[in-house]
């Protein structure tokens, strides 16, 4: 019953002023145990805000992040799952599943969380799951049209992970759910 929030590409303050109000009202401290951030926050204030939601915060460096100390990639273990984080601008072609799968094998993780495309995707292949939480603020992207604000909440329970996707479409929050089960290896 571990709740992990995955989000990224906020581009605050350059491309967006803040998270959408509806998202902010949902994100209250106390419910979430970990936060995974793919990058491009960009400023320290966003980092502090995320830290108020949850003290356990993992961030990787996006190309516009103003803090140079974030790592390029990061791995962590939650429950039975190994998670990997990377912003994704390093992996070209941007958003390509095979290249991301290569990165996943390199990092040796079950769940890879990347961003940069500002578009939510969740792929499953035999080695694991690749999740892109999209842009939490709906910031402009040169490679994607019509960016909707979105983020992902993962509920890790034993060998099963339930991925809840929250998207803000036309001013309303839409929730979707995807189940993944890890085969014990």
């Amino acid at each position, binding site marked *: 019953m571990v*709740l992990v929030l995955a989000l990224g590409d906020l581009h605050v303050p350059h491309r967006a002023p803040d998270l959408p109000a509806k998202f902010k*009202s*949902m*994100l*209250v401290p*106390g*419910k979430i145990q970990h936060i995974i951030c793919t990058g491009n926050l960009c400023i320290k204030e966003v980092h502090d805000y995320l830290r108020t939601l949850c003290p356990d915060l993992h961030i990787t460096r996006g190309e516009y992040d103003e803090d140079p100390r974030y790592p390029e990639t990061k791995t962590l273990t939650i429950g039975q799952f190994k998670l990997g984080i990377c912003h994704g601008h390093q992996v070209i072609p941007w958003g390509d599943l095979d290249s991301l799968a290569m990165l996943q094998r390199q990092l040796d993780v079950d769940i890879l969380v990347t961003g940069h495309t500002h578009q939510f995707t969740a792929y499953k292949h035999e080695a694991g799951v690749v999740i892109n939480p999209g842009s939490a603020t709906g910031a402009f992207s040169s490679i994607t049209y019509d960016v909707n604000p979105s983020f992902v*909440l993962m*509920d890790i*329970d034993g060998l099963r992970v*339930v991925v*809840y996707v*929250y998207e803000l479409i036309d001013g309303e*929050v*839409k*929730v*979707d*759910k995807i189940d993944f089960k890890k085969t014990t290896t």
Partner: protein
Amino acid sequence: MSSVPIESTMPENCGISRRFGDLRGVQWRLDLGILPSSSSIDHLRRVTANSRRRYAALRRQLLVDPHVPKDGSNSPDLIMDNPLSQSPDSMWGRFFRNAELERMLDQDLTRLYPERGSYFQTSECQAMLRRVLLLWCLSHPEYGYRQGMHELLAPLLYVLHVDVERLSEVRKVHEDHFADKFDGFSFHENDLTYKFDFKKFSESLESENGFQKSPAKASSLNDLDPEIQTIVLLSDAYGAEGELGIVLSDKFMEHDAYSMFDALMNGAGGAVSMAEFFSPSPFGNSHTGFAPVIEASAAFYHLLSIVESSLHTHLVELGVEPQYFSLRWLRVLFGREFSLEDLLVIWDEIFAHDNTKSKKPVTNDPDSNSGVLDSERGAFISAFAVSMILSLRSSLLATENATSCLQRLLNFPDDVNLMKLIEKAKSLQSLALESNNSNSLLIHSSLYDGKKSVINRGHSLPIDSTSPRTPLKTVPESYWEEKWRVLHKEQEEQVPSIRKRWSERVKLRLSRTESDPSPSNKNEITKTPKPSVRRSLLEDLERSLGSDEDKDTAHHDPIEVNEQDVADEKVGEENSPKILDTKSPVRGNKEENSPKFLDRQSPARGNNEGNSPKFLESKSSFRGNSEDHENDPESSSVASNSSIDGNDAESSGTNQECSPLPVSDPPDGPSLNYTQNDDSVGKFAKGLKEKKILSGKFQWLWKFGRNGNEGTSDRSGAAEDAKACNGESGEKIVDGFKTVDACDSSCGTSKGEMDNQDLMVSLRDLGQSMLENIQVIESVFQQDRGKIGPSENFSKNGLVGEGQVTALTALKELRKISNILSEM
């Protein structure tokens, strides 16, 4: 199975015959109304099974697994049911709320019965307790969880556990009656013809013989001890309702504990429902409009007034409201006052009494829904509370202030004779019932007045002592407010005299008695290290007093006196050997303080053996006299001053003891009332010269307390005090101790009763400086003597090493005072 009526008596209880005496779990379930009182075991089992089914259903319904979709639907509304959903109905929302509640429960549960951690702190027990409490709170959201519920539940679970243990013991001894001999046999063994195989016959014969050799084995169920018989029947796996019906079952302990707890909290339709004690607001039934706890406390206070009116009046005068201690008593049904075994005996008694609401004969109240204690059980609870108070009667009557009364009541002694308490309670019970019936109105009025008396507390309380007896007064609220203001003003005028400006008084006294100190002082310088310490204490005291610089000190006594004054005054500062250096500034500093000190010191000096008490008394007399003077610090400073005495250990002890006391900031400018001071000074001087009592200091403190308490009546206190002091020279030290206790707490309470914020601050400083002084004194003593006798031996050591003993007792008193102050 035939019905098995069992009569068994409790081992300790005489005269109570219970059906399942030794099996408390079953007996209590009967008493609480969960199990029917029919004598048929079958019926018992069926009811047990039903209650367990209900609990299991409740558990399934309320304990939420958010992964399982609600109502079994396969496509839940994700907008509602996602983990971040703000909607209160969502499963996740409930899940998080439950998690929150469980966190709160865990905080209490981890601290439950640590001394019996071997059972209560095991994870199974804790898990069961947590689940039961969680489910009860979820099904009774109007009560929520309150601390104390876990302590009600714990003994219930414990008795169930004890029953199960008894069962397993019995099982071990009488296995063959429990084990169904057909279970676990292999195919061949089960075959009757096989059994009668002649080859095996001899073997079985031998085994039969083996059986017959043990005489303890009963061959049939009916030959067993009736108690064992019950146990067997209650736990037969093939009886009515099968396994679910096994009345003594450890698989279903949680279920049974839940039903017992529920019945206890709800009162099972009776009058006493524990849940009401946890609710802060009055429930619909109550016509008094007060919270049930307050009602109940008023009820048993009323009973106390009938039974023992002197004690009742005494408590009421001191302002000891019953709910201060009865809240804890009632909410956990005396669970905190007694050990677990004793508690089980008490609860046996309580539950044995029926809980149905008694019919009220008087019907002049239209809505005469009784108080919360209106049943036999309630009456017994009330009577038991009264008998507990009565057992402390002598010590309660001896104390003179509310705080120590409350301390006695809240720290109920361990060695009380439980049987006596229960007997007394039983004898009072009928009285309690009667009083419940006829006096709800009086209770109402007493509560009404009691509420007002809360405001009036701290003043003499003639109102309170008469309120329980008078019918409801329809007095406008403003009347009470006014009365309070009037009383408060008087009180305030006295309070400042008690607390502030004691320095003025000191000054005054010094001017009067300046001749005295010098000769006596020279005589008493015996120990050189002491004076330095005292000097430092004086310094400290002076500094802490922080009053204006006084140039007049110079004309007073020899340097030693001043130094000591200074040292004593500097409560709260460390004693540094640099006292001599600071003497002069200090002197200049305390124009007001040093005179006081000197004043006090002189009598002390004049009297090696305990002038200090006289000081104190005259000091208190001062307080009684002059309204404009600050009493509390003054009295303490008087004490300290008296102890400032140069070289006597005892005087130093008393001195040091006293010096911390006066540490209050005299914030306002001194407003001297010299005329009254004169009187008191005169008396003071006289008193000083006459007394030779070690415990005088304590008497002073006692007077101090009394003065604080009897605010309005203290005007003439001075004269009385002085005389009283003189008259009390023969008092024993032990008594003095007690009175010091009393006055300590009375000091505390009298201070507490004043609403003056400055005073509070100054008192806190007082306490701190007292502590520091204590440390000083202790270090001094360690320097001087190798041994520091316990202050409890004070009376024994009275004649030997007086000074040291006095100092030690002074230390002890200081500690008490500081404790009281810190509590405030």
